[in-house]
């Protein structure tokens, strides 16, 4: 057995669970220009919901668009070109939500600039703004070793993966870092594993895939099958 798997961490990893309650605002837009104008004004929590949190609220199977704006462009405006642009945009490349907002606004403004006709949503397919309230709870599940960590990954809900892997990027203020790689780095070193985790193109992973991929990466780097609780 690789020694690292049973090496005890100085600080155990305490898994949190995260319960998200979407809160619709009762405010909608019917065309791309209205979306652009609203995006300049809406609360950052609304932007955060539609770009990041909605993957926890409702993850569609095999949907190629990773955020609500891209999905709306494709399904409601039936504008594939815009959907592609909004999909390629990665909010994790920006340091804060103010910059994220500016980036989305820039995409929409540039796109609208060259259009002769403003794209409208089909009736019933308007964009409805949401934000969320969040309850975060200690799960009582923790890991002292990497072996325990692998086991715990399968015991916690997908919301826990979301909290530590996605929401952490904003909480820690370091968009390339997440709770899992931070814990491994500070307790075990393992720079190659840490880099591999941070290099994941997370924007395109479902929460379930993130869970499987993490276990796979630990297995790959430490040579131990990571499928049983420690």
């Amino acid at each position, binding site marked *: 057995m690789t020694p690292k798997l049973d090496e005890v961490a100085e600080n155990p990893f305490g898994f949190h*669970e995260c*319960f*998200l*309650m*979407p*809160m*619709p*605002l*009762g405010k*909608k837009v019917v065309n791309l220009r209205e979306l652009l104008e609203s995006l300049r004004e809406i609360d950052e*929590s609304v932007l955060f919901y539609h770009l990041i949190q909605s993957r926890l*609220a*409702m*993850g*569609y*199977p*095999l*949907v190629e668009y990773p955020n609500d704006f891209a999905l709306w462009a494709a399904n409601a405006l039936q504008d594939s070109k815009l959907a592609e642009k909004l999909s390629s945009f990665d909010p994790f490349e920006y340091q804060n939500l103010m910059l994220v907002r500016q980036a989305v606004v820039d995409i929409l403004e540039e796109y609208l600039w060259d259009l002769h006709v403003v794209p409208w949503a089909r009736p*019933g*397919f*308007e964009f*409805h*703004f*949401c*934000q*969320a*309230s*969040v*309850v*975060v*709870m*200690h*799960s*009582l599940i923790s890991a002292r070793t990497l072996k325990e960590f692998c086991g715990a990954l*399968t*015991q*916690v*809900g997908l*919301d826990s993966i979301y909290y530590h892997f996605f929401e952490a990027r904003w909480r820690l203020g370091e968009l390339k870092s997440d709770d899992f790689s931070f814990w491994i780095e500070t307790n075990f070193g393992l720079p190659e594993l840490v880099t591999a985790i941070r290099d994941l193109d997370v924007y395109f992973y479902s929460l379930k895939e993130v869970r499987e991929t993490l276990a796979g990466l630990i297995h790959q780097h430490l040579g131990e099958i990571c499928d049983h609780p420690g």
Partner: protein
Amino acid sequence: MITLDDYAPIVGKEVVGQLHRLAEHLQGRRFVHINSTAVGGGVAEILSWAVPLLNQLGLKTTWEVIMGDPAFFDVTKAFHNGLQGFKVHLTPTMLEHYQKINQENARRFSWEADIVLVHDPQPAFLIESLRPQARRWVWRCHVDVSRPNLAVWRFLREIVKQYDASVFSMSQFAQNLPHPQYLIRPSIDPLSEKNRDLTEEEIKAVLHRLGIKKDKPLIVQISRFDSFKDPVGVIQAFRLVRRHTPCKLVLAGGEATDDPEGPEILAQVQEAARGEPDIQVLLLPPDAHHEVNALQRAADIIVQKSTREGFGLTVTEAMWKGKPVIGGAVGGIVLQLRDYHTGFLVHSPEGCAFRIRYLLHRPEMARRMGQMAREFVRNHFLITRHIRDYLTLMILQDNPDSRLIEL
């Protein structure tokens, strides 16, 4: 008795464990649900399983049903139709009767609660009389209120404004209200009589009893005989399909005690189906869950061609059974059916007919769609997720001014 642990093989142990951990923070809270019918319709079904499970988790949960006379249910049906966008005429006498029946019911209720969840408009006016009996009042709207009739909504808005929060099934239904609005999607119980696995023998026995011979592909729509479910449109679609492909149609619906329009719509459907031996119209009693289960499992394709829909639990049930579903592109059906992935959305009888033909000729696509639908329901529309949302809602109501609560 079914316990929460019985759901672990279906949703995963971690999901059930989470519910227990979350409920630890709410031990002993008194949670009252109020609606207007004990049987029939999605709300009564949800409450019939949610209440025992919430009690198992340590919340003192009760379910109260208001009583009313036919005139009361005529008014509330008019509310229902108006909220779903139809033009209705409400007279002052009707509104007074609605208020009077609520006041009479209020006199029967002596419970006290930490949180009361009032389902739909029928019992909404109870808050006027009972406000001090609960710490927090939450209005739960199950209806598609994306384009409500203004007169109806104006009247109800004044009542709903008194609540501490509202809950809707879709963000499209949220309104301009002076309190927080939340989104909780409905759900189904995979272990209930309506959704549990059935053996081939059980399915055959039900088909035999109902007089359905499965000698052709079977298309089924299960829903109350209600104009918003468009059963006549389904018959039109079926007749279009039949020009090209042999198949059978079963329209089966229950009755709810709070729906006075049912018999009239049923008569229209029977008239439309007259002279067509391959269409069977079945009026099922509200507790015919086993029969509905068997019909859905026997179906090759399930249709839910609604023109308005709060959520469409019959769609969820069909998806859970791994069936390809064709639904009207309205309300919560849009949320559940993703074209070409978890089902098909249609806008007309012609569209419905076309998709039925498509699926009849592409059984492999129908199978894949059904499998994807089942997994989608497993992740989002089973009762464990619904219970989690209730618990989260209660924690949020304990901390009404906070958007991030760390326990």
